[in-house]
């Protein structure tokens, strides 16, 4: 203790300097708003950065919990969305075709069962006779592409004979020159992205990338996009050409489809039935 006291008194200049210097700095920072703000800001910066680092680490530890809550929220939102869409889709969407003065109405339906792996694929939708669906109506995909025809209808459900079926045949044209053809999935074809356009007249030139649309002669409205030619001018034994095309419809991810109601379908059928075959 005595030695310590001797030590301090020998170097009293230094210790006094430390004391007075600290008092001076303290006064400076305490009484000058600028110096105080700088001190506070820089210390806040240091503290803030430290907290930020800590936070990043904490966030990582909490990821599992956050994921769970997000998943729960997602499920809740999805169920709400489902309720909303069912309300929404009970209404018919009217599309006025001003060119041919034909009136089509589209009815959205949810696909409840789908098959793509068989030779003859049939899917089921959640709309039936209650919603005004009749056999033979055209079905199209939400964004672009055709799906098929309504086959059988019950009160609340209907089956669709999809394009991926050996009996399905849709009247199509090449968009650039209106050359007629028939769209079929094709014998021996099991690729759900591919189909064939057949019975194209021999003098028509097809090119890769030509767009194929519906002709409007069947129950499909005219101009629905079907696909793009990838292999044109395949010669067949008859007097017609064939072409291979890539379908716009992705049957594997189909969730909703539109059933096309043609108001003049009955009238047309009745009129055409007057014409006897082989007259």
């Amino acid at each position, binding site marked *: 203790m005595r030695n310590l006291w001797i030590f301090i008194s020998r170097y*009293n200049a230094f210790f006094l*300097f430390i004391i*007075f*210097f600290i*008092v*001076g700095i303290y006064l400076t920072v305490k009484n000058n708003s600028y110096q105080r703000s700088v001190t506070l800001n820089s210390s806040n910066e240091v503290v803030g950065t430290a907290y930020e680092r800590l936070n990043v680490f904490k966030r990582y530890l909490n990821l599992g919990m956050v994921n769970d809550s997000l998943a729960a929220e997602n499920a809740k939102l999805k169920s709400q969305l489902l309720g909303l869409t069912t309300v929404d889709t009970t209404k018919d969407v009217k599309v006025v075709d001003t060119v041919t003065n034909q009136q089509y109405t589209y009815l959205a339906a949810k696909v409840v069962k789908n098959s793509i792996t068989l030779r003859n694929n049939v899917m089921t939708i959640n709309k039936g006779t209650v919603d005004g669906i009749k056999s033979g109506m055209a079905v199209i995909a939400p964004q672009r592409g055709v799906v098929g025809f309504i086959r059988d209808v019950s009160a609340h459900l209907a089956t669709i004979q999809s394009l991926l079926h050996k009996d399905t045949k849709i009247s199509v044209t090449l968009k650039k020159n209106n050359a007629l053809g028939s769209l079929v999935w094709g014998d021996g074809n099991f690729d759900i992205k591919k189909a064939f356009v057949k019975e194209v007249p021999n003098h028509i030139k097809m090119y890769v990338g030509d767009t194929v649309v519906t002709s409007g002669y069947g129950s499909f409205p005219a101009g629905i996009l079907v696909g793009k030619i990838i292999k044109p001018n395949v010669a067949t034994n008859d007097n017609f050409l064939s072409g291979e095309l890539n379908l716009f419809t992705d049957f594997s991810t189909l969730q909703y489809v539109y059933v096309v109601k043609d108001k003049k379908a009955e009238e047309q059928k009745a009129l055409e039935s007057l014409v006897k075959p082989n007259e």
Partner: protein
Amino acid sequence: MNSRIIIVNVIRWFLLLFVQIFLLKNMGFYDLSTPFIYVLFLLLLPFGIPNILLYLLAFGTGLTLDAFYDTMGVHATACVVLAFVRISFISISLNRDAIDDPEPSLSYMGFQWFSLYAFLCVVAHHLVLFFLETFRLTEIGYTLMRCGLSCIFTLLIILLVEFIFYRRTPR
């Protein structure tokens, strides 16, 4: 003898602070060079002064200046640093027992010793003063330039004053 030293120092204190506050406070070259002549009072305090008294005087002088400059604590801290440098320099450069001169002035100590002594003290004081005023290192170039130019100005005035009041004394 003792009372004479006290009276001389008190008069010097009032005179230097008067000049500093009412004249030099309003001077300055482009906000770059500001003289702080009042440190001469601390430089010229007698050799025999106790350290604690020296620190108290330095701190008090600084606080007085701060009151007028509205920079509470800045000058006080700088003066404390100056006092420390003064004590250190004197204890290093002079033999403590052999000091028979009353005060470290130009008249007693000679030009060479006094100019080095004044230079070190003023540089330490100004460095602390300007860095406490700026309080950040981002403008270090500008601060150092202000500090250097102010040091030159202050030293010139200190040497000028010392030569004006130079008394030829037998050494």
